[in-house]
């Protein structure tokens, strides 16, 4: 599994396309049989408690793409705070198992693992 992370609109989709995946390969914020998942944070932010249980299905993917949501002022709303933590912790576990972790900054991919 390749984990692709970076801020919103940092070039993650273009990077995934450069790996050869087309629109038909990509599930956007839903877990199904397609090999690429975009917007993992759309699954974890509304349901922080359910986030750890997604792990087994996510490591079966070829590519998992997630926004980095842990920066900025710590939110006042508890759900958002827990959502950021749960997203970050899940990404830590995914990064540990991933063959490769790529971080996008301003469209530039940096391989930070693998």
């Amino acid at each position, binding site marked *: 599994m390749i*984990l692709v*992370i970076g*801020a919103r609109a940092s070039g993650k989709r273009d990077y995934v396309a450069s790996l050869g995946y087309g629109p038909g390969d990509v599930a956007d914020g839903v877990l199904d049989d397609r090999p690429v998942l975009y917007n993992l944070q759309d699954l974890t932010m509304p349901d922080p408690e359910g986030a750890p249980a997604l792990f087994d299905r996510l490591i079966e993917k070829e590519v998992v793409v997630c926004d*980095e*949501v*842990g*920066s*900025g*002022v*710590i939110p006042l709303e*508890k759900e958002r*705070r*827990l959502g*950021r*933590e*749960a*997203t*970050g*912790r899940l*990404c*830590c*576990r*995914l*990064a*540990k198992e991933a063959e490769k*972790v790529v*971080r996008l900054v301003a469209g530039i991919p940096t391989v*930070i*693992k693998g």
Partner: protein
Amino acid sequence: MKILLTGGSGCGKSTFAESLVMKFPLPRWYVATMRSYGAESEAKIARHRAMRSTKGFETIESQTDVGKIELPGGGTVLLECLCNLTANEMFDDEGNERDPYDKILREVRSLAEKADNLILVTNDVGSDAEAYSDSTLRYVDALGRLNAAFASEFDTVYELVCGIPLLLKGEGL
């Protein structure tokens, strides 16, 4: 040696900080700065405590005034985290505010002089564009300036991303 660790929420800073401390000999002090505001912070404090329980840390609770901490000399201090310390020094329970920059700079330097090694954990709070109150923006500014000041004078700086340490300055360990 002085090491600064930065990164967002849930990016593995505490785990990495503790693995760094374990590379240094005993004694190991953990300076805990978090004020408890109920169940959520209690859970976080308990999680951090459990991580440290087998690692030979002595915990020092110090929500403010870290310059007053007395240490016998030598050893390694892990201070977690600068974001809490900055908030605690900046805002009191009565709603008063003061600029914490000079005091924190002075007191963390003084703490560093009392040990062989200091590992300081901070957070990147400036990377969003929400419409915060003026006082929250002053907090973001203060912490950003402190991060830059400590990064400039410390030996080593890492950013944690998904649990992966990215070396931004100095020699890795």
